[in-house]
């Protein structure tokens, strides 16, 4: 038996994106109506839709482009990348939910995938019933579930509520039970999408421990997607970095993570306006982030302890006022949030955005030590997320004089933690 359990060879997957050319279709309607097809056929029965017309109404989008890699037995492979990089599509193809457009995957062993916690849980059914149902959906036999039932319940810590419908569960209990069922599958290959983002920290730890046990002790193979770089770093032996549907880096986890962080920073060069990998409704979008010093001059590097102004340029899709807006920008490095600057924290009056314009966020004394940080701008209107661009801007901080006597963090401490004004007495 060979040591390679998964080999992915030049995998491609394309989707057709429909544009809203067809008249009369309501916004947000995803699927095609049969009546639309019918009216089209009746109104022009002999006219075949011209090639250009078809091409104009839809566009091919490559979610995966020539993805190739191999996974060995017992490996824990971390898949990282920005939103829209193709991570979820890759997992969907590997778990046979959707077919690839071209390319080939060979898998040697029983696969179980956990793309979402609690898929198939029915709110009306009790915990006990859901364990059986969910187990069967994930591919366990009834005997297998019976044998592991006690173990599953003990792991989830829901013994007392076994005969309560899960709709009455707290969300934590729900997630625990759902993960527990999946964790007790005994597949040779386990595919896990960002499912640990839910649940409390303690349970997350327990789940990670369980996954680690599974890979180390039983020699199982795990493919794991997460945005939490710490988890990827500690759990995975190898990493794959996806960007725009293609493999950008492949190798030891720490190298791949370093590549990812770099790519987040280079995203700055693309320009916020043209970034595709953004989240939110998109009615309001950021177009640029500028850094200004206390005199209003544009700067490349921010100085520790000096005043910094972040100027967020935005544009609204329609020329109408978007009410009740909340804008924030957060600074990150190494997967850790350093601080959040949010309009609602310091202002209580309503923010209305319309047309083009900019907002200035003034930080009087930048509490960051020397290092590279990146900025995630965010905007919502009436509680609807409009735009979120990860790594939209790079914040390079150089040594300054935060403490007012010319001394800085000792070597090796740069870029770790925020600077806090403090005093010592003796």
């Amino acid at each position, binding site marked *: 038996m060979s040591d390679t359990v998964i080999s992915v060879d030049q995998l491609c997957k394309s989707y057709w994106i429909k544009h809203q050319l067809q008249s009369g279709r309501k916004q947000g309607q995803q*699927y095609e109506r*049969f009546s639309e097809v019918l009216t089209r056929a009746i109104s022009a029965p002999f006219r075949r839709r011209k090639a250009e017309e078809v091409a104009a109404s839809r566009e091919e989008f490559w979610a995966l482009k020539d993805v190739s890699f191999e996974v060995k037995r017992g490996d824990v492979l971390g898949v990282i990348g920005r939103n829209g990089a193709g991570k979820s599509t890759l997992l969907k193809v590997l778990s046979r939910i959707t*077919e*690839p457009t071209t390319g080939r995957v060979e*898998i040697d062993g029983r696969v179980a995938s956990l793309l979402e916690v609690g898929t198939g849980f029915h709110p009306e059914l009790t915990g006990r019933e859901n364990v059986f149902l969910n187990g069967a959906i994930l591919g366990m036999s009834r005997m297998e579930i019976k044998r592991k039932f006690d173990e599953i319940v003990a792991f989830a810590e829901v013994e007392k509520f076994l005969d309560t419908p899960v709709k009455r569960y707290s969300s934590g209990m729900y997630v625990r039970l759902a993960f527990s069922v999946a964790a007790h599958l005994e597949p040779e290959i386990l595919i896990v999408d960002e499912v640990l983002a839910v649940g409390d920290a303690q349970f997350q730890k327990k789940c990670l421990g369980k996954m680690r046990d599974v890979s180390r002790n039983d020699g199982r193979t795990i493919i794991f997607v997460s945005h939490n770089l710490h988890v990827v770093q500690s759990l995975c032996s190898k990493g794959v970095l996806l960007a725009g549907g293609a493999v950008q880096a492949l190798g030891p986890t720490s190298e791949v993570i370093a590549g990812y962080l770099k790519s987040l920073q280079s995203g700055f060069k693309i320009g916020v306006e043209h970034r595709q990998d953004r989240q939110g409704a998109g009615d309001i979008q950021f177009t640029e982030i500028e850094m200004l010093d206390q005199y209003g001059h544009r700067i490349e590097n921010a100085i520790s302890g000096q005043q910094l102004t972040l100027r967020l340029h935005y544009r609204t899709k329609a020329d109408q006022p978007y009410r009740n807006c909340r804008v924030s920008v957060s600074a990150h490095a190494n997967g850790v949030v350093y601080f959040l600057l949010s309009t609602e924290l310091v202002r209580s009056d309503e923010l209305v955005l319309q047309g083009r314009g900019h907002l200035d966020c003034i930080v009087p004394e930048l509490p960051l030590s020397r290092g590279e940080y990146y900025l995630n701008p965010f905007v919502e209107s009436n509680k609807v997320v409009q735009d979120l661009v990860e790594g939209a801007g790079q914040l390079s901080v150089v040594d300054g004089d935060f403490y007012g006597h010319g001394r800085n963090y000792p070597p090796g401490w740069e870029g770790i933690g925020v600077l806090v004004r403090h005093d010592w007495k003796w």
Partner: protein
Amino acid sequence: MAKLIIEAGQARKHYWRDLWRYRELFYFLAWRDLLVRYRQTAIGLTWAILRPLLTMIVLTVIFGRVAKLTVPGVPQPILVLAGMLPWQFFSNSLSDSSNSLVANANLISKIYFPRLVVPTSSLLVNLVDFFISFVMLLVLFVWYHYPLTWHFLFLPPLVVLGFLAALGPGLFITALNVKYRDFKYVIPFIVQFGLLVSPVGFSSSLVTERWGVLCRLLYSLNPVVGVIDGFRWAICPKEPFYWPGFVVSLAVIGLMLAYGLNYFRRMERAFADII
């Protein structure tokens, strides 16, 4: 274990083997649907008996008193139930299986399993309802002291036939429903219309009497006709079994099943992308 190979457009070699591996899922999904249906209801399982009972009473009155469907020597309710049982099974199965995929969209887009399990297991639920109604029929037999004949032995294969008759169009419509959601509005129409053109409230021999043999054969193109005629023959055998019509219905059922299955399998690959 054999290697699993995922490729574009590959004919799924392991399709039937996969289906066999997931055989317990048929049962679990049906079990879930049954449990959920009677959860948080005031009278719970009583509904399972009450629903067919009330339908039977209404139809007995309508078809017996108003439409004057009578066969000498056969108690009215038995006559009606013999046609109603297979029709109810067929129509409920058709509507349930047609909506099954969309109703389970969250499963389809997150987990792999042979998609055929979903519409088929919704038929199993209706099979349970069918058996409950069937027990009612047996009670009527005892009540009217009506004799059972050896024809009864043919009921199980006829039930299977009814199952397959619903499965063919059910698979076709559920696959269409994934792509074009407005098909769910078509089903109630088909079901209502079907009740009128199927021999639920009258006997198929009436067609021969009025319009001749050719019409009877044409009439049998309706797959439910064969099933209902079969049921009548098995439950209250007053007329000889009409073979030509049955063979026509059988052929139509077979064709529809083959087409439905083929269409479903062709569409199946894209379900997760468009649902």
